[in-house]
């Protein structure tokens, strides 16, 4: 039993699968030397949009508060600018820690992050096919993965605008020549290990 428990938060029934807890242990080691000085939070350009500040996120990692962590959108908002890593006086790999949390969320396909996981996956699929992103294909893949016919409508005005400016080219989604296919396979094989 974890002996800490927050009084004000109702205990969330565990939506986080067990393996997550193991991977949290390694993440905890990454930030264990944190002294909560707040340099990361002050430096973060996206902190304004986060529900937990980076400092709070680290604290929750230290405390092993997996529910809080994986209900927060903090790490998914990290834009990998490396400001926090650069300035952290403890030399902690904070950006990598953010990425590690993203990876757990992706691997376990955790509900709160489905949207961004699909977004990432669609992006990578397009890159896999053509060696670069094809906007039209990327969007199509993303909309399809969301399985919601209303989503494209939300983006329609923006899409029209971009098209009008020639920012989005009309290309039919295709399997492509797949020059990066072997790299992706190799990575998949590595990840399997």
């Amino acid at each position, binding site marked *: 039993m974890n*002996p*800490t*428990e*927050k*009084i*004000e*938060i109702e205990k969330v029934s565990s939506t986080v699968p067990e393996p997550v807890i193991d991977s949290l242990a390694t993440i*905890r*080691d990454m930030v*264990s*030397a*944190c*002294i*909560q*000085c*707040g*340099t990361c*939070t*002050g*430096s973060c350009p996206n*902190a*304004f949009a986060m529900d*937990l*500040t980076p*400092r*709070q996120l680290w*604290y*929750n990692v*230290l*405390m092993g508060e997996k529910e*809080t962590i994986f209900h927060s959108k903090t790490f998914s908002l990290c834009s990998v600018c490396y400001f926090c890593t*650069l*300035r*952290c*006086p*403890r*030399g902690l790999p904070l950006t990598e820690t953010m990425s590690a949390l993203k990876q757990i969320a992706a691997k376990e396909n955790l509900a709160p992050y489905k949207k961004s996981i699909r977004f990432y996956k669609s992006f990578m699929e397009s890159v896999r096919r053509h060696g670069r992103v094809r906007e039209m294909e990327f969007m199509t893949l993303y909309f399809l993965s969301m399985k919601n016919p209303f989503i494209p409508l939300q983006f329609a005005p923006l899409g029209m605008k971009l098209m009008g400016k020639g920012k989005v080219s009309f290309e039919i989604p295709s399997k492509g020549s797949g020059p990066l296919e072997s790299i992706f396979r190799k990575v998949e094989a590595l990840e399997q290990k």
Partner: protein
Amino acid sequence: MKKKIGKALVVGAGISGIRAALDLAEFGYGVTLVDRSPHIGGVLSQLDYQFPTDRCGMCKMLPMVDRDTSSQYCLRKGLFHENIEIRLSTELVSVEGEPGNFQVSLRQAPNLVDPARCIGCGECVKVCPVEVLDSFNAGLSGRKAIYLPVPHAIPNAYIIDTNACSRCGECEAICPTGAIKLLEEVRKDFRILVVDDELIMRDSLKAWLEDEGFAVDMAASGPEALNHLSKQAYELMLADIKMPGMDGVELLQKAKEVFPDLSVVMMTAYATVETAVEAMKIGALDYLLKPFDPDTLIPMIIRTYQDLEASKEPPMEVGALVLCGGTSYFDPAEGKNTYGYGLYPNVVTSLEFERILSGTGPNQGRLVRLSDGKPLRKVAWLQCVGSRDIKIDADYCSSICCMHAIKEALVAKERAGGALEAAIFYMDMRTFGKSFQRYRDRAETEHDVRFEKGRVHSILYDENSGDLMVRHVDYSGTYREEIFDMVVLSVGQRPALGTTALAEMVEMPLNQWGFGQTEPFSLTRIHKEGIVLGGSFSGLKDISESVIQASAAALSASRAIHAGGGSLTPEPTPEAPLFDISQEPPKVMIAVCTCGDLLSKLLDTQRLVRNLKVDPAVDQVDFLEQTCTVTGWENLIERVEKHTPNRILIGSCLPDVYAKKIRELGRRVGLNPVLIEVVDLMLMARVSNLKSETLSADEISKINSDVLAILGTGLARLKWADPDPVSYEKILQQALVVGGGIAGMSSALAIADHGFQVDLIEQEEMLGGNLNWLQRTLDGNTTKSILDETLLKVEKHPLIRVHTHSRVRASHGQVGRFYTTVEAKEKDAFTLKHGVTILAAGGVEAVTTSYNYGTSEAIVTQKELEKKIHANTIDPSRLESIVMIQCVDSRQEPRNYCSRICCTTALKHALNFKEINPEINVYILYRDMMTYGFTESYYTKARKAGVIFIRYDLAEKPRVTPMDGSVRVTAVEPIIRQKVQIDADLVVLATGIVPRLPKDLAESYGATVDRDGFFEAAESKWRPVDSLKEGIFACGLAHSPRNITESIATAEAAAQRALRILSHERMPAGKVVAEVRHSLCSLCERCIEACPYGARRVDLELEKVLVSPAMCQGCGSCATVCPNSASTLAGFLDQQMFDVIDSALEGTA
């Protein structure tokens, strides 16, 4: 009579070097004090204000017993002591030998200005064309190549920065006293042979070296060089390696065969570096990598030259070395996050801000910005710049910056009349020293210094206004921006420059950050005996700790010399017996210094002599040239010996500087120094005026009257001087140590090791104090080893008498002579006689009733935990979670001080638990983690081990509720802003330390305790282990909370301070002491209250107020409060002072 019984070398003349040197000198050793900079005082010469007084006060370190042996003016201005030889601009070059008998050689940078002739007129500065940054003002202002190293030294001689000087010769030409000699004649005797096949190389080398004053010859090849060598003696050869025919290495070999003493420096291109290294193996001194410029070559040649010159001098023999090398400071420009330092003009370091505050600083102390003159109204201090930063390999706390920042903020506020806003951005406010926490609280509540918890991540600079925007996230997570006029970076400490080289020379180990590493349980000793570390050289100490450690270092050095058997005993100076002149009428000889003949043109000598001789006491008036020089002085002595006056008056300049010479003169001619007087004719001012103006007859006449008046005042003082020989008080050369813990035992041993009897009183059944239950220290040393070792030594020492089960019942007396009645269990009370007293009564863990202590077995104190672990009544592998609560009842009134050891103790236990059982959850609830110095790395270690730290505020303390089988702890976690509830198996309370020094015990010796019950030091910074009343010292926990190693350091310091007194059979009184005219005294006892040194007491049997001449410091407070003029001060009698005033007025009338 003073007998010198050995000699020590103190390297570094900063505050700790001065302390160590004075301690050794007062004990009776001869000391050579060297510093590589051209002034004494180290970094403190740049700091004008020190907390807690926010003033200076360095002079309080000067000797109080036999005080006439030493200077008695501002210590920042200078220091002399009979037994101390000060050598500035001097470095240690080599150390050979063994403890008690080292041979050291020193290298002194050449002084191009003769300090004996420089009168400080400053003409040279006016003509010097070279301007460089002034390091004294931390580079905030400029200075010339010829400059005063510090503005306040006395005497203050100019020096030349040889690296900056262009040798234009302007200063040499204008110097009125011919003190400057740019090209030293001696360098011409240093012949250098340059061997290179390239003509251009030879030519430029010759030109560069001749510019420096060396004699240079050239050779184009090896054979030619050998030819030169056979004809003429050379000191140094510069040889190219790659030459056609005979190459440099071959030349080196051949030359060395014939001239083995020749020094050779090889010159080589990169390709042949390996050959150069080979060449060094066969006898080359060094090598130069081509291409090189004069800036590389010249310093190296000069260094070689100086080394060779230094090696010609016989090495100095010393018994021990005290290394007080100090520290350097972190340069923010080197860091990963510079905060714009070096780029934004208004971002300064704490040392630079210190100069901005100073009256001798770049702004003369006005609080304005250097960049645009805007008055400072809002200043931010950023803590931990260069400290607690793992990224730049500084996983340590610099210990001094928190208090330094608060002090700077308070001084700045005071200076601005309160119209200055100060904010300190910090992570943990480390107020771990005695009185630090209250100082911080006062800064916050009374002076509105803002303490912002949070680390600033960056600063934005507004180019138009010059203002700085400080951006940080506060504890609540809110992003904040604030505009400041100036940002001060509290820079951390770094090892002193040259530490590595010094460490290699003396085989001193360094710790992982490059600071000197001492032996376990010692702050001063390294494995090599006879070489000890003082002050911040071994890392991160404030003034008070540095001073304590310096005294402890002096003790270790003294032990080594003592153990060495005094084989280096210099001859005691023969002393002429003082003539008894009490029956003779005054016969005064007046010697007037004419300052290098400059004044003789001006002085109407006949008129002066005529006027002075009106007084029948005046026997002889002489005019001498430059009494400040050796020849001038010898001249004077000759006259004295010829005329045999019984009083001497010298008219010259800088009377303070003469104090040492007067004693010397008195000794040589058999006159009590009281009968020799020096008056200041203000020659310097007069001479510099003479240079620029032609004086009218009126002005000349005015000067003559002035001189007459000044001499008249001196004459008036002399006539009243009391010719009785100096009185002495006998000293009982025995010590009493109260308390038999590690501190008491260490100080007893230290004194006994010097051959003096010690009585050690312990109230418990056995010695050892807290070490009887403490097991282990944070750094893993077992306390048993040090305890057993010390116990064995104490019990076996023939000079230590241990009295257990005993207490002090009463005591009376004063320094030199105390009588203490001791009562013992099952024994009759007995009385001990002793000359000094050391209070080492110790301290204990505080008792508490907070946090439901006592209601559950699962709530224990740190001491109980330590005992449980030792007794194996606790099994960490079966515990699930432990909560440790810090600062229980501490750092809040009434016990508003940090006990200093609880945070590290908590870490020690936490790490121990985690090591045995990594699964265990350890929560440390803290206010500020006081892991000062190198203990910071254990804080990091604990974090890495997974210990959870939760900060709490006084306003929201944790709550502890005993439950069934566990204890529930609730606290507010400020970062995630939530209440946290922990069900713990064990709650450990850090209750801190309370002293065990009974007030009446302290008071029976005339010492006092502070409001927390700890020993009150005479001065927390400058005399940290002394009582205001001389002869009483304190150490260990009775002094202040500290760990074992630090306690031992205070014990050694106290012992050293005591030994200064014990080493003398009798104490001479000072020249100026108070006396009582008993016929006028009405016994009102006002003088007793007024005396700050406890030198007066009333003897009820005799019905008299008595003054201890040895304790009296001649301040005169008693004389001013006495309603009957019964209390007088020798040398300042009423009638005497009236005469002095009359003479002064007469002359000007």
